[in-house]
């Protein structure tokens, strides 16, 4: 465990197929992380999103994306250095969503010193469905990657049960 103030933010709608990806990653990591790592599920509302990562040194944002890439493809973006691509189609309420929240926070000096985005290309966002097989596989991979970055020790079998 290296980070003193780390926040995992899983964004999405747990009832809309692959859109649940962010929430499920946050839940999976919550069962493994130490008390120095917080995990939250978030609906993506911009003002509260900016608020929730204040005073955090490191933030991982996880969300499903729809960019016409192969379902299950994992995008890794260092938001400290890059902006979210427009083709991700991160849906928002009233034309003001996650990409705008990130860029507004950047302008206002409210972006954490380290913030990384994990986006997983979704296959289906239909209501009432579970994750597609491709996104289910990607979910485990994202969890393992973040655990490795945070040096959280655990065997593979437990991770599969996340």
């Amino acid at each position, binding site marked *: 465990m290296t980070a003193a103030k780390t926040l995992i933010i899983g964004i999405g709608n747990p009832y809309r197929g692959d859109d649940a990806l962010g929430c499920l990653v946050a839940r999976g990591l919550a069962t493994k992380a130490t008390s120095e790592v917080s995990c939250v599920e978030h*609906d993506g509302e911009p*003002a*509260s999103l900016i608020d929730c990562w204040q005073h955090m040194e490191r933030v991982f944002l996880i969300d499903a994306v729809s960019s016409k890439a192969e379902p299950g493809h994992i995008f890794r973006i260092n938001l400290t250095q890059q902006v979210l691509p427009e083709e991700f189609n991160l849906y928002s*309420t*009233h*034309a*003001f969503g996650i990409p705008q929240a990130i860029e*507004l926070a950047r*302008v*206002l000096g409210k972006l954490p010193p380290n913030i990384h985005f994990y986006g997983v290309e979704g296959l289906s966002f239909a209501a009432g469905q579970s994750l597609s097989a491709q996104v289910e596989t990607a979910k485990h991979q994202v969890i393992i990657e973040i655990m490795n970055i945070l040096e959280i020790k655990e065997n593979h079998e437990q991770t599969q049960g996340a």
Partner: protein
Amino acid sequence: MSGDTSGKQKDTRTIKVDYLARVEGEGALYLKIQGNTLEEVKLKIFEPPRFFEGLLRERKFTEAADITSRICGICPVAYQMSAIHAMENACGARVMGSLRELRRLFYCGEWISSHTLHIYMLHAPDFLGYPSAIEMAKDFPEVVERGLQLKKIGNEIMKLMGGREIHPINARIGGFYRLPSPEELAGLRERLMHARDLAFETVKWTGTLTFPQFSQDYTFVALHHPDEYPMNEGRIVSNKGLDIDASEFEAHFEEQHVEHSNALHCVMKPGDKSYHVGPMARYAINFDTLPDEIKQAAQAAGLGRACYNPFQSIIVRAVEVLYAVTEAIRIIDSYTAPKHSAVDIKPRAATGFAVTEAPRGLLYHRYKIDDHGLIENANIVPPTSQNQKMIQDDLSRFVLTCIEQPDEKIQYLCEQAIRNYDPCISCATHFLKLKVDRQ
């Protein structure tokens, strides 16, 4: 925003906005100009229809609030409240006392959150010459910061009363599933006192903006209540003599299908006239019910007893934010916890009607239910459907004031004129892209 400009002939201009920015949902604008004469304006809404009334059929009367809240991510409280009031109306019940006050508190949260988003993030950049709030924040960080702080308090109210900020789940027929604790309300009150200062500053700041001269003789339609600025209750009143109960709505207003739009246009009968709902209508019809200090703040910011310039709607929204914050504090200060979080309400075969004031204006719900409480049919008329024809009428007149400008400038100004209404296209299909055709 994306768009293109082309001319079919030397004196023909075609301006097309394929996707209007800083509005909710997908729509477009088409302008046909012959020389310096505007021949046609079409507000095209191509967001797919969503058939909510259809999927409500044969669902339980208790489910309508949670289903209809899904129509809009920014004003779900309005949908919940209209659904709940309509069902209670069908069942012959009225919820009064502290539960009624808490419903008003819930609505205050949505007005603060929705209006603040539009004022600071979507509308203000128009008046300061920025393409977005992000660009505006580079030069006016403290202004945008103020907007974020105000929005946050609105979100907090929605979360406390609704269980979560988006698509809340705590409101029900008869009241709420869970009541707020005294400690939660006390904490909220403390933050509302700070929000009140921010809201006063917002009214003052919006009054310093520069607006195009474009006053119109609007027919304003809003709820009116003798004792309070309306949110959940009142008669449907216009500034031109209408005064009806919610149950009479369909006798005076009619939704019409227009070929170029997936959203129905609602018109006033007879004569299929356009009318204006939303903050300017509420303000004009209910100015007298505002507390004196808010009337004074509005007048200091440049408003009269009514505002007829849609570009100044940003000031009116700021006044309503100030009112909602002030009203939330009043409700908390006078609150006594009810004995039960909800009253039990039994269904009966009847038709129920309700109109409440969503941030964007009148929201009408009508449900017919059977003895078992199953929904036989439903009708929902959102504010953006009602304002669509008004927006087109505004554009028809506004384009004439700038018709000699280059197409790019017309396009920019028309988008501003549309944003005056804070249209919610997703609600209306429950709508924007511009094309100007110059001939």
